[in-house]
């Protein structure tokens, strides 16, 4: 029996169309728009102005607090303007527009493919480098990695968990990275282990990627303390709390951080970024993005500079199919539908999914028939039908008692509802309101 998490979960069709497509470099765009808020926490503050010449890897916006990160230029060229533009939500956000000229990198960045295994930095030096390189969790949540690596006082990490689950349907960027950059990921893991002072790391990979499991198990033999565990395919296994539960059997208490059970979770993509930042002096300004969808003529995995418009990726994957109805940044379960193709790739963009017209509309909303499917699939053991009603009726104190804040917004409830009820929409709304109430209490 393969391991998986205790409660709930669903198994949407996997549709990993681009699983055997090698990572290609996307051609440089002509202009980029780099938002200053690409992470959870305070937006970075721009340090360049109109007309400045920038090089690849140069800091263009400085971290503005502990829970914040630096933003680096992903291209070389001239700053066109520092202005607002609509982001993936359609709301204007500040960012930096750069006209691309050539591809001139900062000199300290090691651009060779050569594997650099040895390091003699201590933990805090590694954390410092990670912080400077602007690394965030690349699984999609974009939480600044350096914050995770400094546990709150009195807490100690015991094990580092690597998320190679990629439980979202369609997405293959982590899968390809594990296959193509296995050694680099291993070194990245060593660096993370060193900074956390743990001597055990476990990579969790779902069983639908047997090639990655085999390769990483092979590689792990050469690295002290690293092991690989195959997991049953079950969504949302990539959720932090679910992964910890699946691998260690422990449950992170309600409202607590993973460190409460001695675990720190990091994405394999983040481990690779850590390797590049520490061993190659390369800050985080590009990432692997899957471009996929049933109508896409060439589903692909691209290495993309942050700030590249979505349209460039779509073009490189064979153009926008005629009947595209919805464009999703990320996976179909937790990704964000974007209103236009001008939206740029950011650090958290793991994929671009083009959905066909007929897949993109929700079904007609009918009465709740109390079938309890939402309750049985909820990985957090909540009652989505109840939380939705409480959200609809604005009964927020009860929603808080029913632990609405525990919701991880995985969408399993809405996915499974036979009456097509917008469960997660209302739960998210209730969660937002309850969050405000909790904050106002302090």
């Amino acid at each position, binding site marked *: 029996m393969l391991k998986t998490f205790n409660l709930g979960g669903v198994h949407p069709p996997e549709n990993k169309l681009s699983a055997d497509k090698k990572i290609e470099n996307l051609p440089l765009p002509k202009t980029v728009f780099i938002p200053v808020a690409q992470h959870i926490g305070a937006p970075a503050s721009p340090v360049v102005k109109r007309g400045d010449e920038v090089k690849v890897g140069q800091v263009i916006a400085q971290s503005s607090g502990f829970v914040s990160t630096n933003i680096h230029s992903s291209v070389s060229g001239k700053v066109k303007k520092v202005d*607002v533009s*609509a982001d993936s*939500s*359609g*709301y*204007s956000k500040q960012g930096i527009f750069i006209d691309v000229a050539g591809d001139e990198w900062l000199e300290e960045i090691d651009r060779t493919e050569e594997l650099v295994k040895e390091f003699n930095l201590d933990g805090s030096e590694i954390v410092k480098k990670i912080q400077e390189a602007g690394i965030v969790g690349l699984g999609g949540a974009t939480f600044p990695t350096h914050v995770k690596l400094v546990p709150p006082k009195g807490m100690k990490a015991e094990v580092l968990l690597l998320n190679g689950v990629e439980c979202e349907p369609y997405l293959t960027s982590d899968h390809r990275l594990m296959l193509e950059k296995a050694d680099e990921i291993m070194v990245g893991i060593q660096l993370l282990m060193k900074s956390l002072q743990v001597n055990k790391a476990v990579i969790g990979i779902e069983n639908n990627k047997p090639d990655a499991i085999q390769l990483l198990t092979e590689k792990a033999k050469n690295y002290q303390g690293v092991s690989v565990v195959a997991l049953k395919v079950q969504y949302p296994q990539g959720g932090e709390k679910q992964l910890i539960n699946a691998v260690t059997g422990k449950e992170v208490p309600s409202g607590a951080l993973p460190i409460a059970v001695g675990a720190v979770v990091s994405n394999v993509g983040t481990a690779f970024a850590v390797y590049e930042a520490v061993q190659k002096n390369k800050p985080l300004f590009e990432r692997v993005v899957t471009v996929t969808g049933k109508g896409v003529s060439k589903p692909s995995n691209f290495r993309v500079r942050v700030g590249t418009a979505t349209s460039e990726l779509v073009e490189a994957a064979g153009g926008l199919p005629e009947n595209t109805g919805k464009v999703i940044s990320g996976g179909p379960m937790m990704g964000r539908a974007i*209103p*236009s193709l001008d939206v740029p790739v950011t650090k958290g963009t793991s994929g671009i999914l083009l959905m066909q017209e007929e897949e*993109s*509309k*929700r079904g007609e909303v009918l009465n709740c028939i109390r079938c309890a499917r939402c309750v049985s699939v909820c990985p957090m053991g909540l009652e989505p039908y109840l939380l939705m009603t409480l959200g609809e009726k604005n009964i927020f104190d009860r929603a808080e008692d029913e632990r609405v804040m525990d919701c991880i917004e995985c969408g399993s409830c809405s996915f499974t509802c036979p009456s097509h009820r*917008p469960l997660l*929409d*209302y739960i*998210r*709304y209730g969660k*937002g309101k309850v969050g405000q109430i909790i904050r106002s209490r302090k």
Partner: protein
Amino acid sequence: MSIILYTVATLAIIGATAAIILYFVAQKFKVFEDPRIDEVEESLPSANCGGCGFAGCRAFAEACVKATDLGELNCPVGGAETMESVASILGLEAVKKAPRVAFIRCNGTCDHRPKTNAFDGASTCAISAASYGGETGCEYGCLGYGDCVAACEFDAIDLRAGMGVPLILDDKCVACGACVEACPKNLIELRKMYPKGRKVVVACRNEAKGGVARKSCEVACIGCGKCEKVCNFDAITIENNLAFIDSDKCKLCRKCVSVCPTHAIIEVGFPPRKIKEEEKESSTAK
């Protein structure tokens, strides 16, 4: 005979005992309540809309009775008449408040504001606004799902399904402010009511720069400042690329309406203008 006697006696004893117990219980749990609270409550409209800022009419009545001055208290639904009767019950002076009326500061109906995407989530403004900027290029404008309509206890808002922006019916609006709270885009303002429902309003909340605003909506305020200059009463201020007309200062002269290049300032309730039509004719003649 003795049966009757016993019966009467027993009943009398039970009655007396119960009366005594009741008397002491009543003494023990007596709560003093000002009888004027009931009186005031009766004079209120009993809509329990919360427009006064209190949780229902009863709470408002309690506050009125406690207050020494009615200056801060106002029942927007009942208006001056109600407040006067409240004042007379309490022997206080009524403070006359200018009646107000709600207005949705967005004129971005479907013909003015092209759709750029289609929202398919739960149809409420709150959820839509929390996840996306809106179905058009304007992230400040009305979403049209009618959270205000749902919040209105007086049927004073017409959703105008398909138009994109609801309409407030002045004759039904009591300015309770429920819609102001409900609108996630902060579009609704309580403005001073003028005779015949006349008003001159900047029907726009778009704070984007002129070009961006104009691109997303034909009738967006672009913050050009022409209206500010033409106003003789200092009623117009411009902040964040957006004009605002203070309804307490506005004298309804309508100068700003004619200078506004995007027709973001609208006039309501006036007879049709002659000059305007001439202008139109001349422009079509050209």
